[in-house]
């Protein structure tokens, strides 16, 4: 009996003080990736964490999603760069999961792989005319003004029209509206991409419509962003007072949600606050509620180009647990415009050998542990594979949401290590960083380590200082790799 117990104690201490350092690879260097890295480094003192990203630059949406006129939101980068500078952590940019290295190869090189590569695609509306020219996803438009290398060729036409329609009323929709309507002199001193600033300076857009299929009580934006857009200098705001009528079901929703209550109050105030007509030459922002897009209208003069949106009036229907959805009423109207930005949600992209739930657009998981398939069988996990961030939860939440998400995923990982679930892999040494760099070198992949990003960072800040901007972003891969230098 005593011998048996002794052996068990020996076994446990052997697996926890394994002589092989825990080697972790995190795919994606946005908030999910960095919060996960930080937590793992702190919780597992011997661990080595490598973060890879397909872009030469780190930080994900903090760099390419947060609007240029929201610099304070980007302060979290300081915390992330301290993580990257930790001796046990390495950042490797310009390394793409799939084309540079496969998931299976990463699993051979590392004890643990955490996928945190977010959502780089879009939900589709799924209506006729969606591929007309002038219909863009808000995600691409945001990439464009934020200087993302994959967004620089979007070239949206802001000169053919005075009206833009944005489908959606979340924070991304508000960001896009604000960038289109803010005086460009205010944008000129932000880190907005130069090609976007030039286009906006020449833009003829004066009216922006934010179209939501439900009512003001269901609007998805949050108070700070709404307050900001309502406060733009010399902007005429229009909200139909009849849209502000609320039902008992709406009251119930507001009673249960502080966010929705305050949004409704802000919208109500804005509806009656300003003048009832815009003054001549004044820019306009219209909140359109209870309208869902039925199809995009094609221009008669310019074949293949969008000229408006055919909208269907909606009503709300309760579907239980306090939720209400939009139902078409069969009444239609047209809204003319020269550009449409769809802001109805991002969507993740699957990769080879990775289970994926196409319906939800996420990797099937339980508390961050990747499930082997979509069957819902909660006992069949992919060994050593975890997810964090939007790839795990869907594309919602703020930067801080990833903090809790990372905590949960790392808790699952720690539990698995503690219980010996990963013993079959942690028992063996893994090549980790050295193995990864060897393979990438064989394939002539130009890896951008953190020190090289620091060179890019310095150069962008230097270029920015010449133009009274915090930085002038380099927006092509070629420029970025050139400044990064060869390693």
């Amino acid at each position: 009996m005593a011998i048996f117990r002794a052996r068990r104690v020996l076994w446990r201490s052997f697996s926890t003080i394994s002589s092989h350092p825990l080697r972790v690879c995190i795919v994606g260097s946005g908030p999910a990736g960095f919060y996960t890295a930080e937590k793992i480094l702190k919780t597992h003192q011997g661990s080595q964490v490598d973060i890879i990203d397909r872009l030469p630059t780190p930080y994900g949406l903090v760099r390419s999603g947060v609007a240029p006129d929201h610099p304070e939101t980007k302060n979290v980068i300081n915390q992330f760069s301290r993580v990257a500078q930790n001796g046990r952590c390495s950042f490797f940019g310009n390394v793409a999961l799939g084309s540079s290295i496969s998931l299976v190869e990463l699993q051979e090189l590392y004890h643990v792989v955490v996928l945190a590569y977010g959502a780089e695609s879009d939900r589709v509306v799924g209506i006729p005319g969606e591929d007309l020219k002038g219909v863009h996803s808000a995600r691409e438009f945001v990439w464009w003004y934020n200087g993302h290398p994959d967004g620089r060729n979007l070239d949206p036409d802001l000169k053919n029209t005075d009206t833009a329609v944005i489908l959606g009323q979340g924070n991304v929709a508000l960001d896009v509206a604000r960038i289109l309507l803010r005086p460009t002199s205010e944008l000129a001193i932000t880190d907005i991409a130069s090609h976007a600033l030039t286009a906006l300076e020449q833009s003829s857009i004066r009216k922006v419509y934010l179209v939501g299929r439900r009512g003001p009580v269901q609007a998805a934006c949050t108070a700070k962003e709404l307050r900001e857009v309502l406060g733009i200098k010399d902007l005429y705001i229009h909200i139909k007072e009849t849209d502000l009528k609320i039902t008992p079901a709406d009251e119930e929703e507001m009673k249960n949600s502080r966010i929705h209550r305050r949004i409704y109050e802000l919208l109500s105030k804005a509806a009656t606050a300003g003048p009832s007509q815009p003054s001549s030459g004044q820019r306009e922002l219209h909140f359109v509620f209870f309208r869902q897009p039925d199809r995009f209208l094609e221009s008669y003069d310019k074949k293949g180009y969008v000229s408006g949106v055919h909208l269907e009036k909606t009503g709300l229907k309760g579907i239980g647990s306090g939720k209400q959805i939009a139902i078409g009423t069969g009444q239609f109207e047209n809204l003319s415009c020269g550009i449409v930005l769809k802001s109805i949600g991002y969507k993740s992209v699957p990769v080879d050998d990775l289970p994926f739930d196409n319906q939800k657009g996420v990797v099937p998981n339980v508390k961050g542990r990747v499930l082997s398939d979509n069957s819902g069988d909660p006992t069949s996990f992919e060994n050593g594979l975890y997810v964090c961030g939007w790839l795990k939860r869907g594309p919602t939440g703020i930067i801080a949401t990833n903090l809790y998400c990372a905590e949960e995923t790392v808790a699952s990982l720690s539990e698995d290590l503690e219980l010996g679930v990963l013993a079959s892999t942690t028992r063996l040494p893994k090549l980790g960083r050295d193995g990864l760099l060897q393979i990438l070198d064989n394939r002539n992949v130009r890896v951008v380590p953190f020190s090289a990003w620091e060179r890019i960072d310095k150069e962008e800040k230097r270029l920015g200082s010449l133009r009274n901007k915090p930085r002038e972003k380099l927006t092509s891969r070629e420029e970025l790799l050139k400044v990064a230098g060869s390693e």
Partner: protein
Amino acid sequence: MSRSRYTQRHCCQYQWSTLELLPETRAFQGSIFQKHHGFSTSASDGASAGADEEKGTIPVTFVSKDGEEIPIQVPIGMSMLEAAHENDIELEGACEGLLACSTCHVIVMDMEYYNKLEDPADEENDMLDLAFGLTET
């Protein structure tokens, strides 16, 4: 419209100097809600022990999730977030104190003291909308 008061403020906004305006007391009892580290703080009665009149500091005790107490002296006017970081106490503050996120916030346990504070500004309430662990009291 409900009159419920949220006894939550931003620990990066909370200014100790407001206490100076309260003639009745120089003491404050509060706790900081921090999900990950579970820190709570309390400031003992300044009149009795610890307050350094000359330097203008107040004693504050941070209590970690596992009960460890870390007593420090905090200059009047410094935010709790800054005070924690100056003393190497881990407290998440993604925006570094610019009221641009909700990773730090304070829960004031004592309603009497809470009522002595100014109402939260719109900007604070906007951030509190998104705070994890927001409660009515």
